[in-house]
């Protein structure tokens, strides 16, 4: 017997959470794009999507984040630190790959210096994941040792019932348990089976990949040039990735005042590492592509014990030239020893 939530009670849950002071966000399709946005009722959500085009990363690490409001004056300082809004949020219907993306980025944002822009949002959010029942050709969670029902980063795991009427509900953290308590009248004990998770065959051997990347002789391999010939350096893969976190700090305003902001940036951009002197350590696309792969599957793992990839497949799914990291990792897995 497990606790289940029936679909027909979802509206009551949303109402209860709103009453408890939470904003509820779910997967929606608005203006021809699917993302997570605020919902008022269950029918606002599109829970049948395999996954949304935009990730929930946007709500923890927004594309543009105001840091400091300042007034320009030569002999006086007039600035005010801006902090993220302390809004409580429930993210309902998060796929396990997106939830694990948050868990993967936590150690980076907490590496010695604590980025409270990230953590205040994390602390005020509850992640309600829904396990997958379908996958498409681009999904590769199992290749990076996650799965369609992985619990990393989730506070609550909902497993769709085989009969399609709702979900089994399991609290994974104190925050998740507290959230389920607020809707315990809407839950019931039931022995309905959960639907099976899809079989997602591994697309590459991640151990082999990590070993190849760790070999210093491969840093200058011709492989990097060959594999990245068609990359146009557009940055979409990095911006739609649940774990990519590179950013720029820019002062934006006029001659009197402005706001210092943290904006997304991408290691695929040509000017990312350009020195003022004109020297650019990564001045050809192949070196930038190498940086992306090495960072995700070598450097990040070396520092934080986990690969910076949740296997969602968005990078390939929407790459304009059908690239993304899967092909590169497959090619590395298939290299002759």
């Amino acid at each position: 017997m497990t606790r289940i939530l029936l679909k027909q009670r979802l509206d009551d849950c949303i109402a209860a959470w709103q009453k408890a002071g939470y904003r509820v966000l779910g997967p929606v399709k608005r203006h021809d794009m699917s993302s997570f946005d605020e919902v008022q009722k269950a029918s606002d959500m599109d829970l049948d999507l395999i996954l949304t085009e935009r990730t929930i990363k946007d709500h923890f690490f927004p594309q543009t984040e105001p840091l400091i409001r300042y007034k320009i004056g030569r002999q006086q300082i007039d600035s005010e630190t801006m902090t993220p809004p302390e809004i409580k949020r429930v993210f309902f219907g998060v796929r396990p790959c997106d939830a694990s993306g948050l868990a993967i980025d936590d150690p980076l944002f907490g590496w010695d210096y604590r980025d409270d822009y990230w953590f205040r949002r994390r602390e005020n959010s509850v992640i309600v994941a829904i396990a997958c029942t379908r996958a498409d050709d681009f999904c590769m969670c199992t290749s990076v040792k996650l799965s369609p029902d992985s619990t990393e980063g989730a506070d609550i795991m909902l497993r769709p019932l085989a009969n399609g009427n709702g979900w089994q509900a399991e609290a994974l953290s104190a925050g998740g348990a507290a959230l389920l308590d607020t809707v315990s009248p809407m839950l019931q004990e039931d022995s309905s089976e959960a639907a099976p998770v899809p079989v997602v065959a591994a697309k590459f051997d991640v151990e082999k990949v990590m070993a190849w990347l760790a070999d210093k002789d491969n840093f200058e391999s011709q492989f990097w040039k060959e594999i990245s010939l068609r990359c146009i350096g557009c940055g979409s893969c990095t911006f739609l990735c649940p774990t990519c976190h590179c950013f720029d700090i820019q002062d934006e305003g006029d001659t009197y005042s402005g706001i210092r902001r943290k904006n997304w940036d991408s290691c695929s951009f040509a000017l990312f590492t350009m020195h003022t002197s004109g020297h650019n350590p990564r001045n050809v696309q192949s070196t930038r592509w190498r940086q992306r792969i090495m960072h995700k599957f070598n450097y990040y793992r070396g520092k934080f014990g986990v690969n910076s990839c949740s296997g969602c497949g968005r990078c390939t799914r929407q790459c304009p030239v059908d690239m993304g990291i899967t092909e590169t990792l497959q090619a590395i897995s298939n290299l002759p020893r």
Partner: protein
Amino acid sequence: MIYSPFPMRVVSKREEAPGVNTLKLEFVREEDHEFFKAHYRTGMFGLYGIFGEGESTFCVASPETRKDAIECTFRHSGRVTSTLANTDAGDIVTFRGPYGNRFPIEQFEGRNLLFIAGGIALPPTRSVIWSCLDQREKYRDVTIVYGARTVADLVYKHELEEWKRRDDVRLVLTVDPGGETPDWQDHVGFVPTVLEQAAPSPENTIAVLCGPPIMIKFTLISLQKLGFEQENVYTTLENRMKCGVGKCGRCNVGSVYICKEGPVFTAAEVSGMPEGDL
């Protein structure tokens, strides 16, 4: 809050060389100054900025033995440095830091010190030099080899005079061929060449080397010729930076984040980094 800088007042500005200025900055708020005094060690860097323009990364050129103010030396080259170069005493700028790792100068105690610098790279070396000269009795022989393209490009000219006059410091100055003035008394030649001619002994000696990448490359070769072990040669690396705290993903050379695990490295550590990322 992370990314929030300290306000600093410009105390003085000194032109070191064409396009190169040193600013002396004092803390506006006492608690910021206390933080700095508690954390700053020589080798660390900061992000110096002006609201409306942005932030720029350079070392703290003042030593850990003199923490009443911050000195920074920079070349006017981009948007932020141009504005900093146009400040006057009394103006407010910002400082974020101190970040990064440090020169382990306590490990240099009882040893000979060899400082080698080129051009605008004297500032980080100067921070170590003064940290040691201010505690002179802890170290043995001190040799400074410094060169610039021309006489005008030598920075800290007054301090060079001071070091020259001291009898507990051996100063070897050089300018590139063609860069000497008619009355130039010191060496003419590139730093690696002059270094080899000066032939300092590697025996019980730590070398601190800062300069443009090309100078570092050739000087390391010269140091190797002179018998220096890579573990006893310290250098600093720099890269484009924005956050300074290891999060924006920009400054890494291979797996090493210059802002968190640097900027101070031994030559042994540098030789383990992928050259293609430098």
